[in-house]
């Protein structure tokens, strides 16, 4: 806080506002495909905040995995479930209750954040960028077993998805 408002902070707030507005678009849009398109904008905002936090690697992985692959999967699913042909009520009966619960959670979270004393460096300008080398070292030494497990999990998920989506042999 003692640094005053820097250009980075301005960019951060612009990105944050874009991200949050598109996130609201995701959960309130009346058209399913619009929700998916808002989701892309929201992801781009998240990637931008990763850039501000100096983790370029995670930002680019976010774009590569979420921005193209996941979004395409979702659009495929929307098309396969005929999002456009059957317009229908997109919200359940419990909508007011859901909104109230979300607001309550938000209040609790913000209260917790404000009440906590965070251990942070004296000045934010003292923070060093997280280098690619450091991330690689962390993943491939300390976290190598989880990394392998995630790889196995991914291939199992791939097999499972193929099994689920392919038609049964006696189906047609």
């Amino acid at each position: 806080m003692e640094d005053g408002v820097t250009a980075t902070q301005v960019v951060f707030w612009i990105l944050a506002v874009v991200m949050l507005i598109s996130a609201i678009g995701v959960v309130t849009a009346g058209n399913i495909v619009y929700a998916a398109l808002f989701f892309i904008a929201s992801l781009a905002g998240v990637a931008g905040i990763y850039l501000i936090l100096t983790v370029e690697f995670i930002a680019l992985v976010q774009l590569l995995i979420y921005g193209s692959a996941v979004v395409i999967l979702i659009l495929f699913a929307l098309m396969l479930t005929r999002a456009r042909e059957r317009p229908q009520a997109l919200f359940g009966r419990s909508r007011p209750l859901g909104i109230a619960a979300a607001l309550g959670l938000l209040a609790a979270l913000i209260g917790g954040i404000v009440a906590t004393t965070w251990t942070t460096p004296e000045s934010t300008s003292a923070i060093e960028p997280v280098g690619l080398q450091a991330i690689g070292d962390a993943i491939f030494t300390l976290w190598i077993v989880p990394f392998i497990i995630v790889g196995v999990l991914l291939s199992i998920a791939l097999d499972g998805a193929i099994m689920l989506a392919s038609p049964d042999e006696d189906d047609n």
Partner: protein
Amino acid sequence: MPPLEHILVVNAVLFAIGVMGVLTRRNAVLILLSVELMLNAVSLNMVAFAVYGQVDFGNITGVVFAFFIIVIAAAEVALALGIVVRTFRNRATANVDEVNLLKW
């Protein structure tokens, strides 16, 4: 860089929006999108903690967590969408509240 509290508040708002989506939407794909928003908020939080805490705690485990979250989210999306497509084929609906039979 913005102070840690600002980032945490933004992420909390993003997370709450995700929760709202999960609780109010009927379409399974949209619920999945909201879950993804929540995951994004969490991984942003992880990265923020890692970046701000690396001087005091001497590691960047949070960044590794964000990486793992992205990978697992990809796996989760693939599986969940497989289930959605399969449900749609059997029940001709993607709305979670219409899939209300244990056996069909």
